[in-house]
């Protein structure tokens, strides 16, 4: 089975500006991949090439085995742009109906009702887009992207306008989609969100892929910290498996142990290391 998304040596230049410099990336079937990087790193360009909005300067992108932007590729994917707008005069139902027709989905009213329920907008089916909050519009955008049961979902900052409850709804939705075998490429600035839901993470900086792996692969051991009567003591080279021995030796030496913490570097540390500490001003939250 072909990958849901495969980018090979993907490059894009806007005049003298190189947005992407030969990126290789794969999102496998049913996989949830987080895309991280500072502003201007090339994340949105990568996503836009994947959905055919932008033409690559060189390299290639395929969606479910079809060239990105081709009707077959577009039929297999759903997309929510970072900066999107829906006509403010139409209702949620009308918008989804339009996208069902364009996607040639046969889901009808049942699909619309299910999608609106999934994003918590069932009660707002007849409400005009113009009267919805930005968060509601973003959730409607996710519902729109799911029309036609896409095999690949490309989400560009899908939770930027959501409150904590809305973000939790989207996280739960992403978990459910993974359960259904839908592949997701999640472009987000929210490291904690990416860490919570993504199977793998790809970090882009300066148009290049600088790190990739599972969140645990990217996070490395940071030592063991023991709380003693004299304050915390750090065993920098130790790991989780060393904890019983360390506690045993300290107690044997007559020290009082009040607590133990196994330290690991966070995804944020890995991110900072990958993109360079000098980019602290652009660290995602």
């Amino acid at each position, binding site marked *: 089975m072909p990958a849901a998304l495969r980018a090979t040596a993907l490059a894009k230049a806007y005049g003298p500006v190189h947005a992407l410099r030969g990126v290789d990336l794969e999102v496998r079937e049913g996989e949830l991949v987080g895309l991280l990087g500072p502003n201007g790193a090339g994340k949105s360009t990568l996503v836009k090439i994947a959905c055919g909005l*932008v033409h690559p300067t060189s390299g290639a992108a395929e969606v479910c085995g079809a060239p990105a932007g081709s009707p077959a590729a577009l*039929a297999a994917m759903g997309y929510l742009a970072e900066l999107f*707008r829906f006509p403010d005069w*139409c209702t949620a139902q009308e918008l989804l109906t339009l996208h069902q027709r*364009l996607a040639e989905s046969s889901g009808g009213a049942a699909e619309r009702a299910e999608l609106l329920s999934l994003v918590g907008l069932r009660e707002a089916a007849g409400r005009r887009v113009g009267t919805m909050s930005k968060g509601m519009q973003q959730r409607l955008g996710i519902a729109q992207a799911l029309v036609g049961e896409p095999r690949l979902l490309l989400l560009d900052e899908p939770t930027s306008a959501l409150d904590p409850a809305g973000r939790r709804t989207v996280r739960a939705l992403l978990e459910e989609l993974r359960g259904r075998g839908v592949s997701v490429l999640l472009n987000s600035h929210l490291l904690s969100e990416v860490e919570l839901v993504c199977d793998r993470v790809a970090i882009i900086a300066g148009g290049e892929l600088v790190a990739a792996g599972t969140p645990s692969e990217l996070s490395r051991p940071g030592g063991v910290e023991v709380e003693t009567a004299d304050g915390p003591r750090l065993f920098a080279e130790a790991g989780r498996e060393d904890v019983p021995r360390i506690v045993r030796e300290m107690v044997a030496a007559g020290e009082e142990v009040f607590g133990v913490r196994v330290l690991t570097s966070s995804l944020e540390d890995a991110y900072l290391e990958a993109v360079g500490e000098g980019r602290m001003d652009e660290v995602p939250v």
Partner: protein
Amino acid sequence: MSQVAVIAGFALRESLRRRVFVVVAVLTTVFLGLYGLGTWQAFKEVRDFTGPALAGVQPEIVAGATLLGLAMFATLFLATILTVFLTLGVVQGDAERGLLQPLVVRPVRRRTLLLARFAGAAAVSAAYVVAVFLAAATITWAIGGWWPDRVAGPAAQLALAVAILTALSLAGSVVLASTANGIAIFMVFGAGLVAGLLGQIGEALRSDTLGDVAEVTSWALPFEALYQSALAAITADTIGFTRLALDLGPFGGAQSAGPALWAWAVVYLAGVGAAATAGFARRDL
């Protein structure tokens, strides 16, 4: 339902919801009311003309044709406003607002999207120009008793002229922002009018150079040639001194171009459509 019909229908529904057609209907009614008043006043004056000074000229024909000719210009102008506002932001304008991207990532070819928007706007504007032309002709007949020598041909020529302006506006929207595109199309429309005026002046001065410039320009902007041809057709069967009076009067610019104009207009329309499609296909969004 085909995708062309889906997109065109959605665009027209937007115009309905935004009350575009209500505004157009109200203002057109006002225009026709004023036209009726002017026609009544003009024919009242004309009926008082008597004596040898008329030298065989039939004043009702001159008055009717002059008034309807002016109404045709106003009708074409109003239809141009309508079609330009329906299409001036279809590509770049909607892309800047984030409205276009959700549609383009559906399995709909970009040329289909352009064709649908053209079909919707051209159908509405062409129907409008035909309806208002027929209404003006009917008012002229009801008040003054004069009916144009040809009706179907001029109506079709006005409709084709509006279709060309629709295509130009759509093509402009591929490369220009909404405001710039609107200004450009009205400038082009104005250039066409100037060409007609030059032709009139050239005829009065018997200047071949001005005549040639006017002819070349009106073929380069065939909506103007179609308008001139439609003007010529409403008095196609008029002969004698009345014919002479019409040629010397405000219809010096009226030129019958024959079947070649129809063929050229269709080729021109196809050429503009092809250029717009090619530009849109290459465009990054």
